[in-house]
């Protein structure tokens, strides 16, 4: 095992893939990918692009057992399951393709990545509604802090829901992958640190969200998450909120807005940064009005927003906040630059506590 520290992780590669116009032959190669389901192809292609940006030597300094991967998805397999079920019920299991049959298992959509890049530390799949992609980052980072690996490939992948499936009208299709490594390791090989990320997830029970205290509870949980991520309230913060119109989404939006849920349509509200800075999030100052993005039926959009914030830094810490109707919620704090430049007191709590503990 390498003795380099597993703290101070920075993102050195970003790969994004959209379904529209995607051609696996161009993105991955002509051979060996034809029979992979689309979401698996997307994620492989995104990882390939992320690794290309990070540099061909991004994974080489550590052995296969010190490389980990984590992916989040909600809907990668639904369309495939739908097609398979039609086959089974119409003519029987014998007519299923033996090549795609293993993909009934949702974790296979990320598993080819481990084979291609010799990732033997771990390969995790998360499926929590909407936050799964951010959870992949969160759990991957926690695993690195615990010493289970020293390099991380993490992201999200989705495939469009079949026609008629609830939520199909807001389907997501595509993938995002990030490469993370310790800041000193990136510097030593001349790689550019695009920024660091930290994720805290929490749960806002739908009954609590729908209660009179919903916005207040959402604000408290957001405040706790930002504090735990080491964000100093006096540092201007940009906010992107990926939310739906459910009671949970409304409560989170109202917390950011400083209003009680139900006071006007969310989409029509001009979110006021000063309201956020006043009460909801512990007096935090916003760099601008929070950006509101409609959530889709999947876990992709929040990670795509993280990638966008890393790719086009505006000089401020940036929080991507998301929540699902089921209650799952997460905050990803993106800080520009090299993690090693961040003072000790501003590092995420989990990292501080776990460093060197294994």
């Amino acid at each position, binding site marked *: 095992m390498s003795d380099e520290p597993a703290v101070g992780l920075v993102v050195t590669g970003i790969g994004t893939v959209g379904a529209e116009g995607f051609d696996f032959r161009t993105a991955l190669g002509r051979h060996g990918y034809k029979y992979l389901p689309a979401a698996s192809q997307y994620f492989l292609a995104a990882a390939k692009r992320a690794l290309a940006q990070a540099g061909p030597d991004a994974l080489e300094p550590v052995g296969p057992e010190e490389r980990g991967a984590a992916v989040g998805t909600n809907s990668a397999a639904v369309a495939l*399951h739908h097609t398979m*079920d039609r086959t*089974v*019920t119409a003519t*029987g*299991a014998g007519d*299923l393709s033996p090549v795609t*049959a*293993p993909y*009934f*298992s*949702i*974790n*296979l959509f990320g*598993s*080819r990545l*481990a*084979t291609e*890049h010799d*990732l*033997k*530390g*771990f*390969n*995790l*799949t998360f*499926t*929590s509604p*909407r936050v*799964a992609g951010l959870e992949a980052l969160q*759990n991957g980072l*926690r695993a690195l802090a615990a010493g289970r690996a020293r390099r991380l490939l993490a992201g999200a992948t989705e495939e469009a829901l079949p026609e008629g*499936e*609830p*939520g199909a*009208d*807001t389907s997501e299709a595509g993938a995002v992958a990030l490469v993370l490594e310790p800041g000193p390791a990136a510097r030593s090989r001349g790689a550019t640190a695009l920024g660091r990320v930290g994720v805290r*997830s*929490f*749960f*806002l*029970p*739908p*009954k*609590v969200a729908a*209660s*009179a205290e919903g916005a207040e*509870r959402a604000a*408290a949980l957001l405040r*706790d998450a930002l504090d735990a991520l080491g964000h100093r309230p006096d540092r201007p913060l940009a906010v992107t909120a990926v939310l739906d119109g459910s009671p949970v989404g409304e409560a989170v939006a109202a917390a950011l807005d400083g209003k009680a849920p139900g006071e006007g349509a969310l989409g029509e509200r001009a979110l006021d940064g000063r309201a956020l800075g006043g009460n909801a999030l512990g007096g935090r100052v916003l760099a601008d009005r929070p950006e509101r993005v409609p959530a889709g*039926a999947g876990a992709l959009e929040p990670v795509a927003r993280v990638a966008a914030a890393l790719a086009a830094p505006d000089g401020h810490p940036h929080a991507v906040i998301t929540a*699902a*109707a*089921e*209650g*799952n919620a997460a905050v990803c704090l993106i800080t520009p630059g090299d993690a090693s430049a961040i003072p000790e007191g501003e590092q995420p*709590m*989990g990292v501080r*506590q776990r460093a060197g*503990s294994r």
Partner: protein
Amino acid sequence: MDDVLVTGLGALSPLGAGVDAFWRGMHKADTAPARVPDPLAHMDRPLMYLVPEADVPDGPEEQDGLPLGRGSRFALAAAREAVADAGLTAPLEPSALPEAYAAGGGLDPRRVAVALSTGMGDTDLHEGWWTGGEPPASGRWAPAFPLASVVGGWFGAQGVNTCVSNACAASGYALSVGADLIRSGEADVVIAGGAEAYSRVALACFNRLGAIDPERCRPFAADRQGTVFGEGAAVLVLESAAHARARGARTVYGRLAGAGWSCDAHHATAPEPSGEQIERAMRGALREAGAGPESGSGSGPGELGFVIPHGTGTELNDVVESRVLGGLTPRTPLYSVKALIGHTGGAAGAFAALAASLVLHHGTLPPNVPVGELDPECAVPLPSGSTPLTGAYGLVNAYAFGGNNVSLVFGEAAA
């Protein structure tokens, strides 16, 4: 480092509802799969170990507007029992502020996490919609894996809430993630485990892969022809020792003392033949626990009393795992949960953890379900009679498609 204790257990399984039924069933050691009651299951071997019809929860049909499938209902049933067994008050009152609970010496919902796993989630619900059923008129997106959310919503937990879906290793990972949440200081209590329910697609695909045994699940047997799926849910309440002590937890079943992760990075479905990575996971878990061959002493307090293997009944898996166990801990007896209730997929690691906790708590290793003559290449000790426990630790293995491996070590509750 604060110990991670097991302070509550819950189960819904082919042996019936409840942990007591599970423990009785372990001793009775007499089970068999049945044909799934699905007229559309057009496949050669539509066999499973099913939760008895009388024990299948008849609701809820939905929670907070989300329609629930069989997997979510199973998870809820097991979680309810585990939480009650732990002596925790649930559900928490929605309108009460967390600070009020904390100030009153109660459970702070922000410090309660949920880490549940599943391979197929509520896919049965969607399969019903695809074959004539009607999805809810609301048109609301119904994510296929809402199990942890449903349990978190029922309980009122506000901490991390995650669904791990690493196929048949998933609940081993969920338990390990739960322990990490406690050790990193992110949670005091974690409702952790896994649930799996009949899915037509999953069973059909395993049929297509030729991986279903026509008779029963018989790991390590010479005549094995594959696995047989099972369904159900197993949930453990994990708790920091400090928190359990402070609230006076009434029962400590054991400790989750170590975990080891690895990935074969070899093949989509086949295990890596040398077993290098499963051995690494086992050694890592044992080392963290200070148990077995990694304890520095071959016997005494660190002695391994039993192994609950992954052992599915598939050809190569059983051979590779046997070979590694034979080298690592050759005389330690094995107890096969899968021979009893089948391969419960995303819940398999949690059922193994449940069984390990019960064995440590009662100090008895129940008899294995007879699997017939053992494969000479699987030279593992599978006792056919009930035996007293001779070591303070149990090793649990859970492996999956994609080469995902996790090993857990459970230890007796500290005296």
